[in-house]
C-alpha cells in the first residue's frame, strides 16, 4: 500500500497535522509514534496552562493531547505505536520510511508525502560541560518529569535547578509539592528563559529564589551528587572569582535549552537552518525536499503548544495541496532576521500558496522594552508591530496580510527591532 501522508511522530504537531490533512481530503494517512501512546511529551506535562489560545480553556497536557487524539480516532486515522523510525529515503515521487516494532518487525512504508513532527529533546549536561564529578543525581528536567509524573518516583530531596527553561520551572513547583526542597534556580543569562507566568506561579508562589546571572562551576560527589558550587557571572558570562558559594544538594536538574530532533531530516539531505536547528521551511511548512513538510518543535522550539498546533495546520494544508498538485513552488520572498532577532520562520514564502495572511514566528536575542518590530522589503517599511516588552523566552507572532505582500516584487523581507516612534 502507498500512503498519501505519513506523519513522523504522534505528539501535538503530528496529531494536529494529521487531523488537518485528513480534513483537507487526504485519504490514506498514517501516524508513526515511538511511544506506547499518542500525545508525545504532553503526556508527562500534567500541569495546566495548555490550550488558552486554541480552546480558550486551561487544560493539562494529557487533556490537550486528548482533544486531538479524539479527532484522530473519529477521523479513522491509523497509527503504529511503539514504532521506531530508522530512516527516510527519497525515491523521487515516493518516500520510503523504514520502521521497526516488536509486533511487525522491520518494514518499509511507502508514501507520497511526509510530515516531520519529531519534536525536540533536552540539551544534556555533557553539552554544557559543567566541571567536576559525574555522579548520579544530575538529570535533565524532562527526565525527572517522566520519573515523577509517569513512574511515580522521586529523584531526590534537596534540589538545585540550572537554567530557567519552562520545564525546569514547572518541575521546581512539582518537586516542591512532592515534598522536595528546591533551593535555587540558577540562570546564566540576566533574564529568565521561561514564561513570566511560570516564574510567578512556579517559583514566586513557593518562595524559590531565581538567581539570574548565576551558573554552576563545579559538581561535587563521586557516587551521588553532594552539592554544587554556584557563582555569579560577569557580562561575558564568565564566573566572577570570589562569588562562589557551595550549595549542598542531592539532585541537580538541568533546564538549559531544547534542540530540535532532526537526525532523520539531516540524513535525508533536507536543507537545514543553523539558526533554528530545524529544516528551512516555506509558508505551508514545505521543506527543500518536494513532498516533505515539517512543523512544530522539530522546525523551531515553540513557547506554547497552541502555536505548535497552529503551525501543524499549515503543514497539513501544505501536504494536501501537494497531493492535488496545487502547491506552488515558486519562492517569492525570503524572510531574514535583522537587528535584535535571532531567527524567522518561515524562511521562504511562495505567495501563491498563502492564505489571507502569513504568520512569521520569530525570537528576539535579548530583553527589549517599548520597541517595534519592523518588516522591510528593500528600504520600504511594509508592516510594523509595537511591543511593550519582548522576551527571548516568548515567540513573536508577526502577521502580514497577503494583500500587503502582493504589492511588492519578489525579494527579502527583513525583520528588525527598532525604537518606537510615536
Amino acid at each position, binding site marked *: 500500500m502507498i500512503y498519501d501522508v505519513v506523519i513522523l511522530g504522534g505528539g501535538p504537531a503530528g496529531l494536529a497535522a494529521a487531523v488537518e490533512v485528513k480534513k483537507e481530503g487526504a485519504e490514506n494517512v498514517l501516524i508513526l509514534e*515511538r511511544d506506547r501512546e499518542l500525545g508525545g511529551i504532553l503526556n508527562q506535562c500534567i500541569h495546566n496552562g495548555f490550550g488558552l489560545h486554541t480552546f480558550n480553556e486551561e487544560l493539562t497536557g494529557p487533556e490537550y493531547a486528548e482533544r486531538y487524539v479524539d479527532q484522530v480516532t473519529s477521523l479513522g486515522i491509523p497509527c503504529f505505536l*511503539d514504532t*521506531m523510525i*530508522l530512516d527516510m529515503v527519497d525515491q523521487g515521487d515516493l518516500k520510503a520510511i*523504514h520502521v*521497526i*516494532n*516488536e*509486533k*511487525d*518487525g*522491520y518494514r518499509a512504508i511507502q508514501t507520497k508525502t511526509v510530515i516531520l513532527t519529531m519534536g525536540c*529533546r*533536552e540539551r*544534556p*549536561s*555533557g*553539552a554544557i*560541560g559543567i*566541571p*567536576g*564529578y*559525574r*555522579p*548520579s*543525581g544530575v*538529570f*535533565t528536567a*524532562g*527526565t525527572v518529569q*517522566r*520519573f*515523577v509524573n*509517569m*513512574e*511515580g*518516583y*522521586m*529523584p*531526590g*530531596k534537596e534540589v538545585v535547578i540550572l537554567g530557567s527553561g519552562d520545564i525546569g520551572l514547572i518541575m521546581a513547583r512539582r518537586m516542591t509539592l*512532592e*515534598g522536595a526542597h528546591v533551593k535555587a534556580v540558577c540562570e546564566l543569562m540576566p533574564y529568565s528563559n521561561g514564561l513570566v507566568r511560570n516564574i510567578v506561579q512556579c517559583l514566586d508562589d513557593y518562595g524559590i529564589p531565581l538567581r539570574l546571572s548565576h551558573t554552576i*562551576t*563545579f*559538581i561535587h560527589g*563521586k*557516587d*551521588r551528587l553532594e552539592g554544587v558550587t554556584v557563582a555569579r557571572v560577569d557580562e561575558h558570562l564568565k*564566573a566572577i572569582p570570589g562569588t562562589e558559594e557551595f550549595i549542598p544538594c*542531592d539532585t541537580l536538574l538541568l533546564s538549559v535549552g531544547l534542540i530540535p530532533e532532526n537526525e532523520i531530516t*539531516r540524513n535525508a539531505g533536507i536543507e537545514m537552518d543553523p539558526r533554528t536547528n530545524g529544516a528551512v521551511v516555506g509558508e505551508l511548512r514545505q521543506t527543500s525536499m518536494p513532498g516533505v513538510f515539517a512543523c512544530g518543535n522539530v522546525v523551531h522550539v515553540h513557547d506554547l503548544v497552541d502555536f505548535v498546533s497552529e503551525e501543524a495546520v499549515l503543514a497539513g494544508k501544505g501536504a494536501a495541496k501537494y497531493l492535488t498538485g496545487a502547491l506552488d513552488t515558486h519562492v517569492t520572498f525570503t524572510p531574514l532576521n535583522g537587528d535584535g532577532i535571532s531567527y524567522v520562520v518561515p524562511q521562504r514564502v511562495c505567495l501563491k500558496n498563502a492564505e489571507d495572511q502569513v504568520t512569521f514566528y520569530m525570537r528576539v536575542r535579548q530583553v527589549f522594552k517599548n520597541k517595534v518590530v519592523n518588516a522591510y522589503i528593500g528600504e520600504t517599511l511594509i508592516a510594523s508591530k509595537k511591543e511593550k516588552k519582548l522576551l527571548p523566552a516568548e515567540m513573536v507572532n508577526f502577521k502580514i496580510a497577503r494583500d500587503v505582500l502582493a504589492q511588492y516584487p519578489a525579494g527579502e523581507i527583513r525583520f528588525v527591532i527598532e525604537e518606537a516612534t510615536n
Partner: protein
Amino acid sequence: MYDIAIIGAGIAGSYVARELSRYKLTIVLLDGENDVGNQITMANSAIIHAGFDAPSYKLKGKFNAAGNIMYEKVCADLDVPFKRCGSLVVAHDEYEMATIHELYQNGLKNGVPDLKILFKEEVHAMESHLNKDICGALYAPTAGVVSPFELCVNVAENAVDNGVTLKLNHLVSAIKKIADHFNIVTNTGNIEAKYVINAAGVYADDIYEMVGEPYFQLVARKGNYFIFDKEVGNLVNHVIFPCPSKNGKGILVAPTVHGNLLIGPDAEPVEKGDISTTAERLDYIKTNALKNCPTLPFNKIIRSFAGLRNTPVADTFTTTDGDFIIEESPVKGFINVAGYESPGLSSIPAVAHYVVEEIVKALIPDMIDNPNFNPKIRPRMRFEELTETEKKDLIKQNPKYGKVICRCETITEGEIMDVIHRSVGARTVKSVKKRCRAGMGRCQGGFCSPRVVEILARELHCSLDEIMYDQQDSAYILSGKTKSAQSEAKP
C-alpha cells in the same frame, strides 16, 4: 582456598585472569567496584598505540608493538570493536621533525611495522582538517582505536565462562602472608589464595604495602577529555598526536571506534580517586587540540570526563625508571602488575601472556591445560550494524530487538536484556551503557535512562529505586516513591 587471587578487575587483572583460565587452576578475580573495568579502563584515550614511543630497553618498549599485533585476533575472539585506523605524529617545525626521526628509529628498534615519515603534502592529503603549518609526520599504520570498557567486560566474561570466579564489591583492606598462602581481607569477607596477582591500578602500591616493604610508589596523574557528536566524528580519520614531550604524548585528536571524536588528555598529579574535570584543564585541552586541528567544532561536544594514569614515581624509592612493574615481588608468590599506565591497554595481550607463561609458570611449573578453555565469547547482536534482512530475521526470532530504547545510538531492548543476562551481566545504568552504548549518544541518556532503569528492575526482579547508576548503595538514582504513588499503594 584458590590457587590464584587477582586484585583488580580492570583491563590488566581481567586479561591476566582470562589467560590463566587456559589452565586448570582455581582463580578468583576481585574488585572493590560494582563493575569490572570501572576506573582507569573506563576513562582513557582508547588507543592501541603502534609502539614507537617507549625505549626498547623498557618493558613498555618490549610489549607495546607485540601487544598491538595481537589485537585483531583478540577482538575477533572477544567480539570487541577495533579499528586499525593508523596514527600520525605531526611536526610543526624542523626541531619537531628531528623528534619524528628519533621516534621512527626507536620504532624500528621496537619492531613496529610499516612506519613511514611523511612530507607535508602527504599529511594534508591524508587529513584535510589539520593545521596548514604542519610540515611532516610520522605515520604508523598499525595504531588503532578500541572500546576499552567493552574489551574489559568481554575479557572478564570470557574468563568467567572459562571458570574464573568474579567477586565485585570486594574492597581489599589487608593481606596476610600465612606460611604457604595469603589471607586477603575485604569488606565483603576473606579470601584465601596460594598466589596473589596485584593489578590494582592506581592503588597497586597501597595493596603491595599490605604485604611487603614498599619498593615502588604510584602517583595518580589525571587527564581530562572531551567527546564530540558522531556528526563530526570523521573530522580526522587517524589518531593525531602532537610531538611528544617529557610530559607525555600530548593532546591528541582521535576518532573513536564508535565514530565519535575524542580530544585530550592533559596531565596533572592529583589525589587518587580525583576524577573531577576542571574548567582550566578543559580549556587547556581545547587550546592545545586547536594547534593541530584548528576547526574543532566545540559546539558539538557531548561529554567531558577525566581519568587517571598510575605513574610510578622516579625517586630513590623506585627501581623502575617509570616503566611497568611486572614481576614476582620480594614477597614470594606475590606478583605485581603495577605502574601499568599507557601503553598498558596496547600491551595487555602480550603482557598477560608473559605474566602467565613466564612468571606464574615459574611458580607453578606443573600447570595443566584447561581442556574446556574456549577463547571466544558468544557475539553480541548489534542491531544497527545489521543488514535489512538480518534485522527482519532477528526481530522475528526475538521481538525485543524490534524495540529501540536508546534513540541516539539505536540500541534495542533485546540488546539491553542480553547484556543484563550475560555471565558478567550489567547491574547498573552505567554498566548497561558500557556494554551496549545505551545512553552514550548525543542526548546522554536523557531519554533512555528511565527506560533502562525499568528494564533493569524488571529483569533483576527489584523495584526501580533499587537500581543504581554505578556504585552499590551510594549511587542511587531514585530516592523513593512520590507522595501520590505512595498513597495509591496503600490499601
